[in-house]
């Protein structure tokens, strides 16, 4: 069963990374893109948020081979979960950028900064702080969603739990797997809190009160 843990982590890390890269592109398309580009990005986001992840995994693993795209179960899972996560991460990034007040742009402009400089030095560094807790949340959610990959046969934590149960006829083992998931998720959330306080904008909380 323990061999399932690294597989679960790999699935999570790779699909999160894919989701972040694609999510950043989608967010950029929505914030900076032309009207048609932004509509395309938005349709993508609505589609992947509006359909079940399980259906997306099945589609990529079972339906794509019909048009000649054949992926092994591991790759199909990463792509399906990554494409799905991209839609959520795109919205997290977009709303973080939008949350930076207009005055910050005006202030940067008044100092003669170019648009690129404004985003690079002023907007993005603040937006990423706003986005971090939600991104870690998404990461924790993915740790759990990767269990869906068991259905198409990826030997991750949950799949291996099922092997164990069928060998031993001890359904209590499901509880053990839940504990393992918990043992992975809790430190991740803790890490997020640490990250947040490390990079928090000094005085920000006080300013809100």
């Amino acid at each position, binding site marked *: 069963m323990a061999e399932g843990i690294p597989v679960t982590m790999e699935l999570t890390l790779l699909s999160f990374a894919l989701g972040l890269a694609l999510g950043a592109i989608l967010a950029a398309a929505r914030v900076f893109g032309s009207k048609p580009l932004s509509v395309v990005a938005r349709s993508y986001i609505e589609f992947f948020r509006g359909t079940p992840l399980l259906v997306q995994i099945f589609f990529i693993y079972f339906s794509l081979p019909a048009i000649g795209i054949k992926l092994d179960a591991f790759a199909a899972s990463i792509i399906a979960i990554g494409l799905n996560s991209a839609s959520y991460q795109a919205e997290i990034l977009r709303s973080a950028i939008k949350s930076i007040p207009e*005055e*910050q742009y*005006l*202030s*940067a*402009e*008044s*100092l*003669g*900064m*170019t648009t690129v*400089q404004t985003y690079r*030095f*002023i907007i993005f*560094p*603040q937006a990423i*702080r706003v986005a971090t807790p939600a991104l870690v949340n998404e990461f924790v959610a993915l740790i759990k969603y990767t269990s869906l990959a068991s259905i198409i046969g990826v030997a991750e934590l949950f799949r291996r739990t099922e092997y164990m149960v069928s060998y031993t006829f001890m359904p209590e083992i499901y509880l053990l797997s839940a504990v393992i998931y918990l043992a992975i998720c809790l430190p991740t959330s803790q890490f997020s809190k640490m990250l947040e306080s490390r990079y928090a*904008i*000094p*005085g*920000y909380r*006080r*300013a809100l009160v």
Partner: protein
Amino acid sequence: MSGELLRISGLRAGYGRIEVLRGIDLRVERGEKIVILGPSGSGKSTLLKCIPYLVRPWSGEIHIDGLQVSPEPNTLRRIRASTGFVFQQYNLFPHMTILRNVALPLELNKEMPRREAEKSALSVLNMLGLGELAGKYPLELSGGQQQRAAIARALAVDPKLLLLDEPTSALDPELRYEVVETLYQVAKQGRSMLIVTHELDFAEAAADRVVFMDEGLIVEEGDAREVLGHPRKERTERFLRRLRSRLNSFPPSN
């Protein structure tokens, strides 16, 4: 150190369909300090923002030191690098220390290396008595300190013209005092300043000229003491009377 620094002619601007500035003509000489007065909604703040094109004018011309302001990116950068702008709400960058706030424009506009920019930023902060706050972040400071830091940031690039948009309006009375002190200090250095403010004492003591605006037009302008003491236009007089009675209403004058 004389001659024309800023010339505004026929300036019209607004938001959406609402015209806020209805034809402004204004000249500022080098080294001159001008206070702009007027009721809220008279277009003072919009006028100030139009100068470095933070608000895009509808029509009219603005020349700073002979260079016509235009939306062309290079011109715009040069114009903005030669004007300092201080906002009512300070608008410092909260994720950077005060020192970084002041040094960054120097690095980007004057292409100064970081060490040099920070050295020069620190000397401006020291000049305004803010040296000890260099390592602090904006939201750790009081409003008055933030506004003084914002003034330091605007001054760091050694602008030809300093534009201040109601720099004390967002502050409590006891915090206003320290900002006004800083304004006096900056005014003494001979830099050209255009200040929208209701600080009449400051206007009287430090301004060369007062401009009174109402409903998007300049109603009256002239020597500070003259306009404040003996306004020619009735509207100016009424405005000043109201402003003074408001300022003197505590403690209640019996």
